[in-house]
């Protein structure tokens, strides 16, 4: 008896379901709406408006003159050497510090996770402290430490018999110094992430490998690293975005050149765009640079995900 009535009721119910569900959950929509409202105003609209600006020559206060793709041509042509250098710098910096920092973070995490090291909490605290420090404060301090004449690093170098170096003056040393500051600031953060990742790997796995005759180094490369892969990918991708978006670090370390460093060796895309927009009032060009940069980093992230991310499937 009940069967036909259910069958009859079904089409009617289906027609009302969606609207009914939306009304029933109206509170949920209200709760999540602030994000979407702010997104529309401060992300979606600017992203669209940025296309419009990038097609104009705009000096800030004056009128906007339509110039078509002129700004993009500039960036990819002879005048855009500084911009292309900034993208290149992002790649160079990435290769200079990310492998070293990631490897060091994993090694330190493994050490702190092992039963042989005491004072786990003290080490973790000390290594993590730089992460909460303002990069401006740290950058000025490093500038002080790395001074060519009478900076503490050079004094220490001389004390052990090495010759002092112009840390902030030449192209590659400037990049090295920047990497030193970044590793100082971010090593602890990456280590803490790796440590959390390690703690999800059961001890039995590495112990079983050891019983089967693997030594500590083999167990590290064959078991720990593969199992940590998702966490490593996360940290490497964050570091990629980080090395292109460096801003305060270079501002503090290379203040006299507005963050560009000697021969623009530490000019990053974000600093280039900031300088075009707020230093030279070339807003159209800055907007175009923002787009090219976005495309560049988007492709780079996809490539990274493809190469490291998917292997476990």
């Amino acid at each position, binding site marked *: 008896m009940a069967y036909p009535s259910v069958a009859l009721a079904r089409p009617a119910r289906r027609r009302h379901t969606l609207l009914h569900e939306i009304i029933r*959950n109206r*509170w*949920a*929509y*209200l*709760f*999540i709406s*602030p994000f979407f409202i*702010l997104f529309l*105003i*401060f*992300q979606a609209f600017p992203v669209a*408006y*940025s296309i419009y600006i990038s097609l104009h020559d705009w000096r800030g206060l004056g009128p906007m003159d339509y110039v078509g793709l002129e700004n993009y041509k500039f960036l990819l042509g002879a005048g855009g050497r500084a911009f292309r250098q900034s993208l290149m710098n992002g790649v160079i910096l990435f290769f200079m510090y990310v492998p070293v920092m990631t490897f060091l973070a994993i090694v330190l995490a493994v*050490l*702190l996770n092992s039963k042989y*090291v005491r004072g786990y909490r003290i*080490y973790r*605290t*000390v290594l*993590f*402290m*730089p992460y*909460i*420090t*303002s990069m*401006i*404060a740290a950058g000025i*301090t490093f500038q*002080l*430490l790395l001074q060519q*004449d*009478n900076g*503490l690093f050079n*004094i220490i170098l001389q004390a052990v018999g090495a010759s002092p170096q112009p840390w902030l003056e030449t192209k590659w040393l400037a990049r090295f110094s920047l990497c030193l500051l970044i590793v*100082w600031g971010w090593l602890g953060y990456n280590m*803490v*992430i790796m*440590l*959390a990742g390690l703690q*999800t790997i059961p001890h039995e796995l590495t112990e079983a490998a050891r019983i089967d005759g693997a030594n*500590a180094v083999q167990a590290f490369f064959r078991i720990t690293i593969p199992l940590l892969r998702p966490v490593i990918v*996360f940290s490497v991708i964050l570091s990629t*975005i980080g090395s*292109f*978006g460096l*801003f*305060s670090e270079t*501002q*503090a370390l290379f203040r006299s050149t507005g963050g560009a460093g000697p021969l623009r060796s530490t000019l990053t*895309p*974000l600093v280039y765009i*900031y300088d075009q927009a*707020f230093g030279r009032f070339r*807003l159209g060009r*800055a907007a175009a640079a*923002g787009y090219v*940069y*976005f495309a560049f980093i*988007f492709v780079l992230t996809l490539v990274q995900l493809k190469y490291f991310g998917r292997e476990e499937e």
Partner: protein
Amino acid sequence: MATQIREERRFETARSDLQRRLLRVGALGLMHALLISVSLFMILPFIWMLSTSFKPQTEIFARPPILVSSNMSLEGYRYIYEYKQTGGVLNVVKNTVIISTSYTLLALFFCALGGYGFAKYRFPGRKFLFSFLLATMIVPQAVTMVPTYAMMVKFGWVNTFLPLIVPGVANAFGIFFMRQYISTLSTELLDAGRIDGCTEFGLFWRIVLPIVLPGLTSLGLIFFMSSWNNYLLPVIYLKTPTLHTLPLMMLQMTGPMGFSLYREQMGVAVISTIPLLIIFLVFQRRFVEGITSGALKG
């Protein structure tokens, strides 16, 4: 024959035992050497920052380097206390506290609310909207920087704290974080509240928020820290020195011609670092939880 072989074996095991023990001692030594040298590298800038902030100009680059001397004074701190352009360092501290605190409280409210919406309601479009929210995280600041500035000029928000607070108060990371946290709450608790006549917002305010307090602390620490240390937004929007924040004052302070302000800059750096350091030491566990949950679940 047999005894000879046994003898040899015993000798071999003895030797490999010794080797193994030596190897272990060596490895342990290396491990600790690495940990200690990295730790020293991490601590050194803090010590140098603090020491420099008390040193007279002549001792900042002294050779051999001076860590503590009898010439140390509070002169540097007096300079930044009386620094007229920004209304003294205390005014700058006040600005930084106002911005960071209001941003943190508002962002916690809106992110928890959004996270609650996504975690506890099965509304149509939920999956799509949430994926969309995560996808917005890939838009870099470099793209929106110029047009947002143009908008802020139109709004008349330049030289106010609003551009530093409003755009990010309901951010994707925070909502993602709180959704993870709130999903673990039992739905029965909420149903019980509903039966008792709680409104949907009342459920959030009276039941959910108090329970997720640890999660709010973790997230709030991250928000507070990133706002406190932010440099890019203040340098774009805060043109008037009396509105400056600590990182801005550190870099933009000027002295009488020909004088380096390293000591004074280090003084501001110390003032900027110490509050965060204290907060970090007190809430260390929550801090680490907040940092890691994004990496492991994401």
